C-alpha cells in the first residue's frame, strides 16, 4: 500500500483539522484546566465527536460504528495532538472498542459496541500497576470465587479512569508476575462494589486515575476473551493504543515545530531575524527530517494494523519509539528556541511539552519499545 493518505483519508484529516481548530484547540484545554473541570473533557465536544461518527470509528458497521481502519483513527489522533484536545477518543473509541471487537463474544459485542458508538459509554483499559509500563508484570489477582471471580490489587495511569463507566481490567489468573501466560481480561462496571477510582491530575491536564480493587466480586461472564490466555488480545489492544499515541505525538510535535519555525521568521535579535542564525537553522532542519521519518513510520504502523493486525508488534514499537523521541526533541527545541517566553504559562508551547511527556510514557516509552524491538529481533 502506498505510504500516502488516500482521498477519503485526506478529507477526514481536513475535516478534523477544521473542526478541532474551531471547536477545541488550546483555549479549550486551558479552560478545562483553569476551571478544574471535574470530567476532564467536554461532554458537549464528545457529543459532536459522536455525531461525526468518531466514537465508532473502529467499530464494525453492524454494531453501529463507521467500520473504518487504524489509518483513519490515526488521522484523527494526529489532529487531536495538534490541538491538544482531551477526549475519550483514545480510551473508549480506540482501545476499548478494539479490545471488545477483537476479543469479545457476540453477546459482549452487541451489548457494548453500539453503546460506545452512540457515546453512551466511556470505557478504558486498566493495565499498568507500576510507574513504568511493564504489562507482563501484572500482579492484580483474580481468583475463582463462587460463580465468578474476586479481584484484588490496584491499577495506575488509567486513562479516563475516574469517568469511565466500563473498565477493561488485565488481571492475573495464574502463573506469576513476569510471565505473559496466566493473564485474563475482565469487563467491569466501574460502579461495582470495591472499585475505587481516584483521579490523579497529571502535568498535561489530561485524564488519568489510580483504581483500587478491593475484593471486587464479579460473575464469570465478565471475562473478555480467553481465560489465562489474554496476552495476545492485550497486546492487540495495546498496539492500537501505542500506534494511536504515536499519531498524537506526531501531531503535537509537528505543531510545536510549526510554531517554532514561525517564531524563527519573526523574532529579531542583533538586528536580524533569529532564523538567520545557522545554529538554529540546522537544528530546525534536522528536526524537520526527524518529523518526516516519524510520519513515514507512524503511517506504516497504522497500515500494518489494518492489513495484518497480529503481526504489527515490531512496526508499532518502532513507531512509538520514534514518535516519542521525535516529539520530545520537537518540544525541547520549541521551548529553547522561544527563549524566555517559551517558559511562560501564558505561552502555549509549554503545554505541548507537557502533553508530549505524558504521551512518551503512555504504553511504553522509547526505551521500552527499543528493548521490545531488540527482543523481537533476538538480540
Amino acid at each position, binding site marked *: 500500500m502506498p505510504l*500516502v493518505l488516500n482521498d477519503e483519508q485526506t478529507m477526514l484529516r481536513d475535516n478534523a483539522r477544521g473542526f478541532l481548530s474551531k471547536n477545541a484547540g488550546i483555549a479549550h484545554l486551558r479552560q478545562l484546566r483553569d476551571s478544574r473541570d471535574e470530567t476532564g473533557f467536554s461532554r458537549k465536544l464528545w457529543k459532536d465527536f459522536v455525531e461525526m461518527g468518531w466514537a465508532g470509528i473502529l467499530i464494525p458497521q453492524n454494531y453501529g460504528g463507521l467500520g473504518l481502519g487504524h489509518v483513519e483513527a490515526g488521522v484523527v489522533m494526529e489532529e487531536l495532538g495538534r490541538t491538544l484536545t482531551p477526549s475519550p477518543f483514545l480510551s473508549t473509541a480506540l482501545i476499548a472498542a478494539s479490545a471488545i471487537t477483537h476479543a469479545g463474544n457476540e453477546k459482549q459485542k452487541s451489548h457494548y459496541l453500539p453503546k460506545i458508538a452512540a457515546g453512551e459509554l466511556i470505557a478504558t483499559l486498566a493495565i499498568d500497576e507500576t510507574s513504568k509500563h511493564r504489562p507482563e508484570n501484572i500482579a492484580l489477582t483474580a481468583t475463582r470465587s463462587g460463580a465468578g471471580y474476586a479481584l484484588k490489587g490496584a491499577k495506575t495511569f488509567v486513562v479516563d479512569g475516574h469517568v469511565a463507566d466500563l473498565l477493561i481490567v488485565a488481571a492475573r489468573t495464574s502463573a506469576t508476575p513476569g510471565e505473559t501466560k496466566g493473564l485474563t481480561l475482565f469487563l467491569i462496571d466501574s460502579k461495582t462494589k470495591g472499585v475505587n477510582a481516584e483521579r490523579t491530575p497529571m502535568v498535561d491536564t489530561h485524564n488519568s486515575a489510580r483504581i483500587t480493587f478491593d475484593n471486587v466480586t464479579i460473575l464469570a461472564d465478565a471475562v473478555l476473551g480467553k481465560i489465562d490466555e489474554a496476552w495476545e488480545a492485550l497486546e492487540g489492544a495495546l498496539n492500537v493504543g501505542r500506534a494511536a499515541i504515536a499519531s498524537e505525538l506526531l501531531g503535537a510535535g509537528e505543531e510545536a515545530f510549526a510554531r517554532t519555525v514561525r517564531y524563527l*521568521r519573526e523574532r529579531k535579535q542583533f538586528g*536580524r*531575524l533569529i532564523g538567520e542564525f545557522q545554529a538554529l537553522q540546522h537544528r530546525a532542519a534536522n528536526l*524537520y527530517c526527524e518529523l518526516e*521519518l516519524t510520519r513515514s*513510520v507512524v503511517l506504516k504502523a497504522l497500515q500494518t494494523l489494518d492489513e495484518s493486525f497480529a503481526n504489527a508488534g515490531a512496526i508499532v514499537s518502532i513507531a512509538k519509539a520514534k514518535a516519542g523521541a521525535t516529539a520530545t526533541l520537537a518540544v525541547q527545541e520549541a521551548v529553547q528556541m522561544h527563549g524566555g517566553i517559551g517558559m511562560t504559562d501564558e505561552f502555549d508551547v509549554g503545554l505541548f511539552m507537557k502533553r508530549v511527556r505524558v504521551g512518551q510514557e503512555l504504553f511504553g516509552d522509547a526505551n521500552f519499545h527499543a528493548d521490545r524491538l531488540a527482543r523481537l529481533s533476538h538480540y
Partner: protein
Amino acid sequence: MSDLETFRKDTKAWLEANCPAEMRQPPRSEDDTCWGGRRWKFQSDAQRVWLERMAEKGWTVPDWPREYGGGGLSRDQLKILRQEMRALGCRSPLDSFGIWMLGPALLKYGNEEQKHEHLPKIARGEIRWCQGYSEPGAGSDLASLQTRAEDKGDNFLVNGSKIWTSYADRADWIFCLVRTDPNSPKHSGISFLLFDMQSPGVSTKPITLISGASPFCETFFDDVLVPKHNLVGTLNKGWEIAKYLLTHERDMIGGMGSTSDSRSLGQSAAESVGLENGVLGDTVLRSQIASYEIDAAAFRLTMERAGDLAKVGQAHPAISSLLKYYGTELNKRRLELTMSAGGSDALEWEGEKSREGFTARAWLRSKANSIEGGTSEVQLNIIAKRILGLPGA
C-alpha cells in the same frame, strides 16, 4: 491476475533463469561490482554474462525509455524489479555515474543527438563517466569554480583543474562544469560540457583515501579542445543542469542509508559479542543498535514514501537533501556500531581473516558519505532555506 502481478511473476522467473549463481552472492569488494567502460576487466564470466543479459533487457537502466537502451518500466514495475532482485540477492549488473547522474540530466537537458550518442553506451556499460565538479577552491561553494572554457569557433578551449574526481583515472569521459562567462555573476556564467578523457591535454593524478583505496584524482586540463556539440543545454545556463544532476547524486548516496544487508546489525552483533539470557552481552551497545535500527527502519520507509509522494506529485523538490543528509549520517552510525560490535577483529587491516580489512576500510570510506555530493551542512542549509523558508540561508 493484474498486469503488475504478471510482471512480477515473469520478472521472478526471468531472474531465476538468467542471474548466474555467482551474481547472487553479496559483493565482497569494490571490483565485485561492474562499473563498465572501455578498460573494464570482468572479474569473471558470470559478471560479463549478467551485464550482457540485463543490458539486453534494458534493465541496467530499467526506467529509461527503450529507445535509449532502457527498459521503459513504470515506477511500479521498477519497484517490483528491485524487490525481486533483492529477494534473490542479485547484484546490481552495472553501477556507474552515467546511470546515476549523467543519464537523468541528459534525459532532461540533452538534445536528441546527445541522448542517442551517449545513453545507450551508458546502458550497456561501454563508456564510464566521471564527474568534474569540485575544484581546489570550489567545494561546498561549487558555483565559484574557475575552470575556463573559451570560445574558439568550432571548439571550446578548456583550462583549469578539478579535484576529488572519483575514478577519473579509470573513466572514459567526463561531464564537467566550466566557466564560459567570467564577467557575469558566479551562478550565471557556468556551462555543462562533455568530453573524452583521452583528449590531448587531460591528465589525472590519483589521491589515496584514509581507507587506503585510491578512488579519486586531481584532474588537470591543459588546452583541451572540446567540440561545441558537446555542450549540454544552453551556454552559461549550466548551473541549472548541475543542480538537477546533484539531486540524483544525492538520492543515490542517501540510498546507502538503507542497506541491502538482510541481517540486522543486532543479529551480527549477537554473533560477535554474544548473548546473555537472550540479550546482547553489551547492553549499552544493544540500546544504541536498537535505536539505530528504529531510525533505519523509519528511513527506509521514508525512501519508500518519497517515491510514493513523487508518484502523486506531492514530493517536495528538495526532498533529496533530506534523504542525502539522513541516509549518510545513518550509514556512518551503522559503521561506527559495526566497529564497536566487531571489537579488535574489526581493526585488522590486512590478511585473509578480515578480507583485507573489509570492515575497517568500509568504516573509513563511510565518512566520505556526508561530504561527497554536498556535505551534510550544505543539505541542512538547503532544507532550512527551501523547505522551511528560513531567512538568509
